[in-house]
């Protein structure tokens, strides 16, 4: 399959229950699919790092037989490398073993080489060499609350990592445990969940223990964060000191996804699901909802999406790119993947009949990087 020699193209990495697929497109509408890579291993996390003049795809891979590990590719999947001693391995003395890599998050352009990872058991890791070697964050690992953190249905994980432009404020969300904030670059952590409900606990408003599904930062407003909770959609304007509900106007306050615009203040996307007895898009009709006013109102977006659709979209099976206008992407547990080149106004199908989609990440890349045919 060839690709037009346009100045820029797009790559969409799709991590599924049974491997990784890579989709490329000149326009975010017509896609070519290659794969699978890592067939029969799940790929729950992906990071596309476009800093340092290269495009590095980092993937957290997990084999049921052979365990989890991190691979990276600097040639868009032509070849894959695994550091000899493993990128993420629990050090001696922790008496712990890596279960799954839930999040791979390249840091800001101002901190090239820095990549964060969120893992199971609940842990945060930091790399300074582009994701080839990670160091365990001891501040969170040794936190006195650890014994009281629980597991969501999919496992106990630190799944969201948000780093502010200075690198000093870091917010992590975990299921279950809630949101934790560091003001010193990760050296120390405190829970910050005031206003986030945990209806399934004896105290529905505990200091920590919430099942926060995903958090994301507003790209333009300092201190503003959004959270999709296990029931509840929230916004904080004070670096998680307090959270207020922004679920009014949504057909359901449950979901896994929280995306924010790469540049514009007040714009976020969620994908509501009905829960808990059911776990499907409301009325079996899949839609993305976007706010442009920080959650005061929401707009339903479903052009190009199937009806009916009973499969859910998992927390990292959705992403945005940094192009203009911003692209929005997501994949379902039914193995369908959709892309929008206009912030969700219209979607087109990228792929179908894939295994459960666990993670998607997209980026604009130079067309010269794309292989002519694989």
């Amino acid at each position, binding site marked *: 399959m060839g690709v037009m020699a346009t100045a820029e193209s797009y790559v969409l990495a799709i991590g599924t229950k049974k491997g990784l697929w890579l989709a490329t497109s000149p326009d975010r509408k017509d896609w070519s699919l290659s794969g699978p890579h890592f067939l029969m291993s799940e790929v729950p996390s992906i990071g596309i790092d476009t800093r340092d003049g290269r495009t590095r795809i980092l993937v957290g891979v997990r084999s*049921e*037989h052979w*365990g989890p*590990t991190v691979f990276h590719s600097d040639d868009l999947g032509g070849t894959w490398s695994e550091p*000899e001693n493993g990128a993420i391995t*629990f050090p001696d003395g*922790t008496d712990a*073993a*890596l279960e799954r890599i839930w999040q791979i998050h390249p840091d800001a352009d101002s901190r090239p080489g820095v990549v964060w990872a969120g893992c199971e058991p609940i842990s945060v890791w930091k790399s300074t060499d582009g994701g080839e070697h990670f160091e365990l964050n001891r501040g969170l690992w040794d936190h006195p609350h650890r014994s009281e953190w629980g597991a969501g249905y999919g496992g106990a994980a630190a799944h969201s990592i948000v780093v502010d432009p200075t690198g000093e404020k870091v917010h992590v969300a975990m299921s279950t445990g809630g949101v934790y904030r560091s003001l010193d670059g990760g050296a120390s952590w405190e829970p910050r969940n005031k206003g986030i409900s945990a209806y399934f606990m004896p105290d529905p408003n505990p200091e920590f223990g919430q099942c926060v599904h995903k958090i994301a930062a507003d790209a333009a407003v300092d201190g503003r964060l959004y959270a999709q909770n296990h029931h509840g959609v929230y916004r904080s304007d004070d670096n998680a000191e307090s959270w207020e509900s922004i679920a009014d106007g949504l057909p359901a306050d449950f979901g896994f996804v929280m995306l924010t615009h790469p540049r514009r203040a007040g714009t976020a996307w969620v994908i509501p699901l009905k829960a808990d007895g059911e776990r499907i898009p409301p009325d079996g009709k899949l839609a993305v909802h976007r706010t442009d006013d920080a959650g005061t109102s929401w707009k339903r977006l479903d052009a190009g999406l199937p009806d009916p659709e009973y499969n859910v979209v998992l927390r990292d099976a959705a992403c945005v790119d940094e192009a203009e206008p911003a692209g929005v992407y997501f994949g379902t547990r039914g193995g369908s993947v959709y892309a929008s080149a206009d912030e969700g106004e219209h979607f087109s199908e990228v792929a179908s009949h894939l295994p459960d989609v666990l993670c998607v990440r997209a980026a604009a890349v130079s067309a010269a990087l794309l292989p002519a045919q694989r």
Partner: protein
Amino acid sequence: MNNGMPVPADSAISVILPSVLQPLAGGQSILTAPAEEAVTVEWLLDTVTGEYPALSRRLRDETGTVRRYVNIYVNGNEIRRLQGLVTTVAPGQEVLIIQSVAGG
């Protein structure tokens, strides 16, 4: 284990790898360790995977525990039914590594 003296070839212990792991052992299907006396499975794995850290990680996690769906057979018996990693292996024996049949 051999004090620098040559070890008879027939006393070496062989570890037979499944095909999926052979690329991590330089393409070898069998790894061997010299042994003049009985050794533990743990020692055996440490010895044969010493040059292949990625292979080692596939078999055991950071705590040294054999991964749940990795089976290690000594004399036809899976080590979990024997003494686990301290199960002894006699010189000249073969140890089989076979992954569980699983999937969906």
